[in-house]
């Protein structure tokens, strides 16, 4: 059998963890509910997920179920080189197995080959720091509250004030790219004027994160418009757009991509079901996001979520900039490689 170099780790609760582990491996790869012709040993060798290790975590509970940790080996031929193919295997029908009452994907260790095929951040932590010319201290972001519907000039004036007050990054109050009341082309013209003035007058570089949420082809056009006007950063809802749209955009733009909320926080919110934040954040970095909020549920985690975003996947260039609300700054555990955000009003 070929040496396995991709691994997914699950925590599960099952009456019979060994049986659950086998079913899970089958659901993630070559299994069905009855054996069918053609499941040859050679095919199994090349494509079947293997149970590499199964560790029981304690004694059976009152219902006779035992918590267990499963390390599954993922064959390279099964995963190919596409994130959606990977996810259909490690986070697809495995989520539904009846033989475990809870299943949670807690860790993903991928081969360098697979990681290299992913878009990954164009800027990440280091790239954002060099964009801003701020090598060390925590970065500061002002998030203008949504709901304010400014015209381009109004928005530019507010951005100027927030930059003057010390923000390294100001985020658009808009959540769609190009509404008629504040078209992107006019918005970027007005705001980039402010950015340039700020840089010339104060000698300090700053970023404005423009909402470019739209259908995939349109997000690429919006990104081109921004780049053409000298803008360097775009904001989006990764949860709403989804993975293929984000990877699509990442492969077609060099802008800094800023996620407005922790993507797919829903997946990690139940502590025993779903996908741990550590895995969710890795997926979205592989998809190419540069700025990744820590989820609210990580409050009080002693810096775990922040450090996860700063831990290299393939290499240091794919470290994301963790976005942390200033109220949770204590959770950064002294980590200075963060973007501290404050909510700002329209005036």
């Amino acid at each position, binding site marked *: 059998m070929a040496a396995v170099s991709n691994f997914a780790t699950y925590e599960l609760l099952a009456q019979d963890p060994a049986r659950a582990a086998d079913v899970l491996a089958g659901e993630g790869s070559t299994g069905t509910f009855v054996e069918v012709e053609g499941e040859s040993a050679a095919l199994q060798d090349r494509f079947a997920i293997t149970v590499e290790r199964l560790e029981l975590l304690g004694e059976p509970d009152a219902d006779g179920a035992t918590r267990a940790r499963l390390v599954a080996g993922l064959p390279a031929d099964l995963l190919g080189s596409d994130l959606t193919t990977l996810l259909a295997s490690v986070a697809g029908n495995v989520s539904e197995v009846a033989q475990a009452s809870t299943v949670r994907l807690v860790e993903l260790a991928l081969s360098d080959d697979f990681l290299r095929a992913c878009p990954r951040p164009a800027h990440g932590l280091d790239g954002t720091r060099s964009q801003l010319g701020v090598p060390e201290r925590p970065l500061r972001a002002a998030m203008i509250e949504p709901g304010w519907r400014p015209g381009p000039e109004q928005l530019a004036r507010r951005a100027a004030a927030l930059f003057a007050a010390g923000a390294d990054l100001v985020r658009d109050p808009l959540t769609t790219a190009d509404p008629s009341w504040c078209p992107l082309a006019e918005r970027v013209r007005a705001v980039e004027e402010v950015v340039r003035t700020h840089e010339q007058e104060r000698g300090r570089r700053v970023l404005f994160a423009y909402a470019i949420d739209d259908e995939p082809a349109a997000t690429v056009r919006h990104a081109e418009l921004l780049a053409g006007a000298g803008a360097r950063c775009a904001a989006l809802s990764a949860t709403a757009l989804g993975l293929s749209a984000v990877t*699509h955009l990442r492969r077609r733009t060099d802008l800094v991509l800023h996620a407005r909320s922790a993507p797919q926080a829903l997946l990690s919110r139940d502590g025993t079901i779903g996908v741990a934040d550590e895995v969710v954040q890795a997926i979205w970095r592989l998809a190419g996001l540069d700025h990744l909020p820590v*989820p609210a549920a990580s409050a009080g985690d002693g810096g775990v979520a922040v450090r996860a975003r700063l831990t290299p996947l393939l290499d240091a260039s794919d470290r994301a900039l963790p976005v942390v609300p200033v109220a949770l700054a204590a959770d950064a555990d002294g980590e200075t490689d963060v973007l501290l955000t404050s909510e700002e009003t329209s005036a």
Partner: protein
Amino acid sequence: MSGGTVLPDAERDARVVSPAATTARYRIAAPTPLDTAVRALAATVGLGPDAPATVQELTPAPAPAAGIEAAEVTLALPEERLEGGVLALAEAVLDAPFDLPGLAGLRLLDVVPGAGVAAQAPGPAFGIPGTRELAGVPERPILGSIVKPSVGLSIEETAERVRLLGVAGLDFIKDDELLADQAHAPLAARAEGVGAAIDEVERETGRRPMFAFNVSADDVDRMLESHDRVVEAGGTCVMVSLNQVGLAGALALRRHTRVPIHGHRNGWGFLARSPDWGIAYPAYLALWRLVGVDHMHVNGFANKFWEPDESVAASLRACLAPMGDVPRAMPVVSSGQWGGQSVTQYAAVPSLDFMYLAGGGIQGHPDGPEAGVRAITAAWEAATAGVPLEEKAAAVPELRRSLERFGKRRAG
């Protein structure tokens, strides 16, 4: 799965046809007092504390733990929140709400789009009638299977299996979701190989089964190119893993597609299985239906997975319920199906507008796939005629063999 995820049809319809705002219904749980959490949710679903969503209805729900309060809350979204259409709706109801601090639970139970969002969204291009027309199946359930083993077959092996399944009489055949564009069977070459097999089936039987090619990819243009290869090869359906591809990618495919989009919901358990957190099927369906997915998976009765029958029935009903002017998506019943579930399913949801997929139930039939097809067809004839399966099996030996082989599994 939580109870009460679907409203009675009459009530649901009444809300859909009202021209009122888009609404989202949640079950929320938080430490006492709950009001604070509800206000925070309304602000997030809307456009902040100054332009929150409006609380239309608030009904206390059973508290999950001491010191925790719970309620079902229906929120009406401000129109300004929805200028970006279905993607903006998705952000409003799914993104920041699930990242709110201080909650003990949040489940999105239902989403009812207002006329504005519904008019902007494409909706299914084919839905039930278009799929029936392309598959050549006017009334009965569309009977389908999945190529197994799920992944690892060469293109030649895949094509040969498709030919056998087509000749066996299936209306619909699909890739497994684990097979996409891997090197051992690239999509473009598979489309050609399987396309030729479908041509052969047509020559032999006069019927052309629909085949759903998995075009899921982490690049939208690659999905669209795969779609083009499929259509060039005479294919009549493309499949995507909804949760993995995401809404905007699916929307781009919908804008481009010339064939029905088969929506596979692998990963559903991670969204729905927690009693406290996640999304119930009617809400999930509403978003994909707006985007325009034509076929939506709902699991099956007595399925091999965790999902109980009442949850499957609720999902099936949601697919068949009207949603304003947005066409219906065809429900796809699958997982551990072999025909024996027909009586239970039909008793719970007396409709034949669904696809019925059996992988092992057909390819694992002791007398081969043709016998599997006959067994399932007979099982559905029995269910709709009100004839007990055992009685039908006395006349149809293939069904008798299925009952012997699969009937020991929990049959719902």
